[in-house]
């Protein structure tokens, strides 16, 4: 596929689960980068050639909404698509995420099929 993905979640276990789900869904990325919060995610986006971001919402230091807001101000990275993957499913918070540029959302818990259904068309 020749693409790079960035997984943003404060849980290292969840990052591993999402990475495994991508493989089980047949979405074989060249590189899977990881970040533990929005601050780390911005650092990775500035350094690496990332095609898509999968980000949690509830995280310490910088949460997913603040990450989207900050990313939208940076010319070099603002157009990289972000898919939210979170326990948060309320219309208000998902609506806010989408207003800040998120391209969709996956609710935890999720199956590899669900990841493929939502993420596949974005690649």
């Amino acid at each position: 596929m020749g693409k790079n993905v960035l997984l943003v979640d404060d849980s290292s276990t969840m990052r591993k689960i999402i990475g495994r789900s991508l493989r089980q869904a047949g979405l074989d990325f060249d590189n899977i980068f990881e970040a533990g919060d929005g601050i780390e995610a911005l650092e990775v986006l500035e350094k690496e050639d990332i095609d898509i971001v999968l980000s949690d919402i509830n995280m310490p230091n910088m949460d997913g909404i603040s990450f989207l807001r900050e990313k939208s101000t940076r010319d070099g990275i603002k157009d990289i698509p972000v898919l939210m993957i979170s326990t948060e499913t309320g219309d208000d918070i998902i609506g806010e995420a989408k207003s800040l540029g998120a391209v969709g959302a996956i609710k935890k818990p999720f199956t590899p099929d669900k990841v493929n259904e939502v993420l596949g068309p974005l690649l």
Partner: protein
Amino acid sequence: MNVGQDIIDSTKEVFSTMLMIELEVVEVIEGRGGDIPANITSMIGLGKDIRGMLAVHCPAAVAKGITGTFLGMEVEEIGEDVKDAIGEIANMVAGNLKVSFAEAGKDIELAIPTTIIGESFRTSGMSGAQRVVVQFSMNDDLFMIELKFR
């Protein structure tokens, strides 16, 4: 709203979806405190319309089993991976319960999970709070989900 049933449905969905494990319900306990026979507990604070706490209480064997299934590897000790994995279980169960409460017209906010390691501790607090505990069986081992709220 049947809180006990909502805890059951929320927890079963998390385990069947993420771990491919079908849980059995052993007991639903309402309204009384007591000792919690657990080695690891992960708690999430609830705020806004409902204030309280959701906790996952696991003996070491269950916690290591859940973590091993999550990671696809044998887990031999209670370390960061185990704390992280049980925290994620608490997070996802609380997320499902948030949807149930929303359907009942209650908007709740979730804090970030806190996980502690210990043995046989007692929980207390919040006068006037409702308490519902559901005991589950996972491959013949027992663990509990506790919700305190008002």
